[in-house]
């Protein structure tokens, strides 16, 4: 069983309410049934707790940008998946999947993130939804 399948089983367990893990927040602000993709340039990476926040400037089609705030996991969890406080630099191109905020605001729960060189990293928060 590969890693993604195993993680998906974890998700099923959590969804069944059987052995839920302890995440910081309830995910209730996010529409976990939807996945959106945002592309732009890195505005900032807040390497903080309880969760890391990745900020992406997304072109608004009018010559400006809209800052999107994407909530990751705790620094320790993110580090175990390959993230670090120096993983991204301001201005670099980036694409991220997210579960959008129910409010329609510009942000979401951070999912798979793809970098300019084609490599990608996950975020623990995705485990709540599954691959």
């Amino acid at each position, binding site marked *: 069983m590969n890693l993604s399948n195993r993680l998906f089983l974890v998700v099923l367990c959590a969804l*069944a309410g*059987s052995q839920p893990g302890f*995440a910081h927040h309830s995910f209730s602000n996010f529409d976990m049934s939807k996945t959106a993709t945002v592309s732009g340039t890195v505005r900032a990476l807040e390497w903080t707790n309880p969760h890391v926040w990745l*900020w992406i400037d997304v072109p608004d089609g009018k010559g400006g940008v809209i800052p999107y705030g994407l909530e990751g996991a705790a620094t*320790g969890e993110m580090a175990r998946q390959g993230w670090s406080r120096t993983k991204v630099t301001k201005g670099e191109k980036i694409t991220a999947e997210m579960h959008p905020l129910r409010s329609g605001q510009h942000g979401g729960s951070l999912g798979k993130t793809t970098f300019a060189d084609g490599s990608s990293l996950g975020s623990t928060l995705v485990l709540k939804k599954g691959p």
Partner: protein
Amino acid sequence: MFTDAATTARPRGGKIKEEIIRNNLSVAAIAAAVLALCGGAAPVSHYPGNQGLTWASLAQLPDWTGAWALDPPSFQRVIATSGGPDGNPNIPPLTPRYAAMRKANGAANGGQGPAGTGVETNSLHCLPTGMPGMMSSPFSFEFLYTPGRVTIINDGREVRRVYTDGRGHNPDADPTFEGDSIGHWEDGTLVIDTQNILPDADLFVGMHTGANTHVVERISKIDPHTLEDQLVVTDPVIFAKPWRYYRTYQLNKLGMSEYVCEQNNRDSNGVVNLTPPPE
């Protein structure tokens, strides 16, 4: 379970170490007798295991050096071992009253509550998770040995002090999130008995502990990279029968990290702060 433990504990180590240990135990016994004669509270030596009682004997203990991160697959293992009601091993074996509470508060509804607004946890409010939920936190843990005590700390700065010096539980102690833990070593296994847990600790997501929640753990290193915690949680009001499950922890070469809940808490109580950080 624990009455057998005292007789099954097997001493290891050289004669000199054993003599030191015996001498220490003798001193403890004399001190207990004196206290009893004077009307004081004599320490109760339920588990007179002799590993880790002195600085020298700490070398007899298994090497658990390092940071140990909660292992997601251990949530699968519990499926086969917990044994819930109605043949469904995925559900903690709750009494009917608490099963109804669990359903009502949404822990059985995708973890998002009946209205999809989320299930309460202590972490949501930056409170300690407490026992036994703490051992299911997505953090790394470290196990520190000093004579007669093992200290367990996680990234979230929750601290468990497990006294292995033979003392009993202190019935006068204030309840705490982590509870009152005493333990002993059975060769390479640390056996911990935890009581006096504050009824505000997290039993699991969406449910708190009760006034008589009792946790027994057996922690051991099952391979060079894995620690295993076998937990048995009982509470006569909450559980219809003991709730048994496993958690495993993988050696995390990145080490411990610092988790401060209040540092940059942008997502709290249903409100998300989307003001970008200053450039």
